[in-house]
């Protein structure tokens, strides 16, 4: 399993929505939650998002996995809110937070990487007047995404090498070889880019 294997192919209306629409919806939802002040509104929002998972033909497990990652954080905030501001406020804060996390996850579960990068390229079009090339932004984003599994693998290699030597896992002794290996990898990527004519 790769680190960023998130896209789950399905044939659903949510999958067919253009990536730009989904991202815009996510931004609007993020801004919109500020307006939700009642506890039942937050629960309704949460139910709507759960419904979208159904529409996208994703299993409940998909949703549960996404929410489990933030469960501890949300629980901590919830307890704090109950003590400080009462249970209604706690439901609003935690409900909105869970709904937004689930919604953001829904976008990445239903949208192909290439489509998301395409949105970034189009979105950075207006930056052209500041000397930013949208194509270069797209290149950066796709290179960055593809580098994540590479760096994760390098980290694994460094850790294995340490364990093989029986060396204690001191953070510095782990980080320095990792950064050195990452720099060498960047060097090779840079050469590959030049070889492909990304040089002006």
């Amino acid at each position, binding site marked *: 399993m790769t680190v*960023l294997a*998130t896209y789950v192919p399905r044939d659903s209306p949510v999958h067919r929505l253009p990536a730009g629409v989904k*991202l815009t919806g*996510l*931004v609007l*939802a*993020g801004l919109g*939650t500020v307006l939700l002040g009642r506890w039942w509104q937050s629960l309704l929002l949460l139910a709507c998002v759960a419904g979208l998972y159904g529409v996208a033909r994703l299993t409940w497990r998909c949703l549960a996995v*996404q929410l489990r*990652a*933030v469960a*501890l*954080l949300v629980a901590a*905030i919830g307890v704090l809110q109950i003590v*400080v*501001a009462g249970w209604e406020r706690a439901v609003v*804060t935690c409900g*909105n*937070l869970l709904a*937004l*996390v689930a919604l*953001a*996850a829904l*976008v*990445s579960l239903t*949208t192909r990487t290439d489509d*998301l*990068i395409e*949105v*970034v390229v189009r979105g950075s079009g207006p930056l052209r007047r500041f000397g930013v090339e949208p194509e270069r932004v797209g*290149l*950066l*984003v796709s*290179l*960055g*995404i*593809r*580098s*994540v599994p*590479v*760096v*994760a693998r390098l980290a694994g290699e460094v850790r294995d090498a340490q364990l093989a030597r029986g060396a204690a896992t001191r*953070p*510095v002794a782990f*980080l*320095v070889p*990792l*950064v*050195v290996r*990452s*720099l060498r990898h*960047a*060097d090779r*990527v*840079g050469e590959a*880019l*030049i070889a492909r004519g*990304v*040089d*002006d």
Partner: protein
Amino acid sequence: MTESTDAAARSVTNTTTAIRPRSIALVAVFAALIAVAAIVPGIPVGSVGVPITLQTLAVMLTGLCLGPLRGGLAVLLYLVIGFVGFPVFSKGQSGLGVLAGPSAGYLVAFLLAAVVVGFAATRVVRRRPAVWAPLFFVAAMLTSIVFVHGLGVLGMVLNADLSLANAFKADLVFYPGDVIKNLVAASAAAAVHRAFPDLLARRPR
């Protein structure tokens, strides 16, 4: 070991015409480094038991290694990758939704922190190597107190409905971990600059 390190160091930065694609590669790889650091589960620290993520450590290291421009770009790229929906934020979060969450302030602060500490690093590497690690540590510590904690507290006040005093208390638990992380980042960055002396010497284009 030394020989291959030197060869790698020379090839990272030797030709002026090749700096731009190499900068792109450096920025992409360091953005990935931050992402990996954020994905790895936090480690409990000493007797305090506060789990810390390696995310802030990676951000400081990025700034110290790459300088203000490329370091800042690497953090920005990491944020963009997370915003468009990849689960590269801590605890596997992603999307613009995090900007509504309690840790939003910290994420924005990372960008500023990398730029500020990167600027300090460009000054520090002009001095003799013996003082690199301590000066890196001072720069990283000042940056995290002013920017990371300042904006982090602000984010919790705005997004988690905490009062200023409560947010400050919630933020205090990160301090012991920060001292350790900045110590590690400073000595690691010093070692990296010793291995790649040209990393910051030339102005990035």
